[in-house]
């Protein structure tokens, strides 16, 4: 078991969290959507896995490369 952090690629704010703690995601699934400069940019679960922790909520400001969720892969 190993964990990794899903990170926001841009500075902006959380527009929508689209997963729940405990949910299993496939590689490439969307964890949440960040809104910045009128664009919606998804945070992707690169390696999939089970969502262990969501570190932000709707409206939270985030900066580039900030971890927003922790996932666990087997």
């Amino acid at each position, binding site marked *: 078991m190993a964990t990794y952090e899903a990170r926001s690629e*841009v500075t*902006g*704010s959380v527009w929508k969290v689209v997963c729940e703690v405990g949910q299993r995601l496939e590689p490439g699934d969307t964890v949440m959507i960040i809104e910045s400069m009128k*664009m919606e940019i998804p945070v992707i679960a690169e390696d999939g896995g089970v969502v262990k922790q969501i570190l932000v909520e709707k409206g939270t400001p985030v900066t580039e490369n900030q971890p927003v969720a922790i996932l666990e892969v087997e």
Partner: protein
Amino acid sequence: MFHKVVVANRGAVAARVLRALDGLGVRSVAVYSDADADAPYLELASETYHIGAAPARESYLNEDAILEVLRVSHADGLHPGYGFLSENHRFAERVQAAGACFVGPSPRWIEAMGHKTRARDLAAQYGLPVGRGTGVLLKDAPAMLRAADEIGYPVLVKPAAGGGGIGMIAVHKPEELAPAVERAASMAERGFANGEVYLERLVERPRHVEIQVLGDRAGAVRHLFERDCSVQRRHQKIIEEAPGPGLARAVVGPLAADVARVLGAMGYDNIGTIEMLMGADGEFSFLEMNTRLQVEHGVTEEVTGVDLVAAQLRSAAGEPLAEILPERIAPEGHAIQARVYAEDPKRFFPSPGPLHVFRPPQDDGIRLETGYREGQQVTPHYDPLLAKVIAHAPTREAAIARLTGALRGFDIQGVKHNVPALVRILQSAEFQDGGVHTGLASEVLARAQ
């Protein structure tokens, strides 16, 4: 003429309208959110009012706050700029109900042209070329498939109340149609609070050519020639020019005249732009009408010598077109605009941050439009436009060279920006040959990676 005008916008367009008001000797009112409290253009205004927090819905989209500024400032006009509330007909009605003039066309025109299929119907009814397409799709899968068959694949699914390329999906095969319609409808519902979508023939590798018009309150309309805005990323324009490269005057001249004639017949009554697609076969088809000033109005101003913002204000104040525009307008030379965005030049992701260094070029023949200055913060709340750099020269080749030089001399540090991408496009063989189309930017940039 107006006594005092509220500029209900921010950034480069707020600066541009404030300058025009100053030139006309009209008092001006600027509004600002928390994020723009130190914006440089506020110094150009006779009065400034804070209208709310940084998020647009709490400030620049906050109708009540802006109407309150209109009331307390005793202004008799409101210029909406572009974006934000500029194409909101209900807001335009509220401005009128408050006893002021909305500097734009009458609300009924904003409403009619804001709905894509209704605008297409109107254009067709008045004899403008309109490509094959449908009305708003009903939730009837067999009928949808029949409609797509009649148009012929590939088709484009588009939101009827949309804009900015959001929610547009290309469909190449019948089995892709239903899921695409569903996805487009959900994006349209989210983006525009209206889930209506329709189908249009997909024109492949089209050019985007648009005709600038100005009407007066009596319904007289003239055109100010065309612009080519084919160079786009994410369906948004990044390089615009006038005149359109390689367009036969014998074709585009009559087209522009037709557009002016049609809008005159309709009684259109202020500034506007008819956007058209030009296929590889040279056929034009109506795309949409923007009932406001365009981001790229500057290239038309450079080649025609007409101050479009001042002209728009004078028309809104009731001056007849014959007094506003010179009798003969002849485009002179070539103008190209590049939009400098705070974004990653490869993936086009936004890049807000501090403008540690922001030193625009000051070359001859270069015009700069911006709402920023060095030291300011570029926030994630608004669109990523940092500046518009416009070059005017006797020929297209000279304008490309001048613009490239200016962009190379634009020193921006603290945010990522798209200047390298703009230079690469300007220096590409395709662009220099004038073989522009809406896929050009992504093709040139993909090659560079």
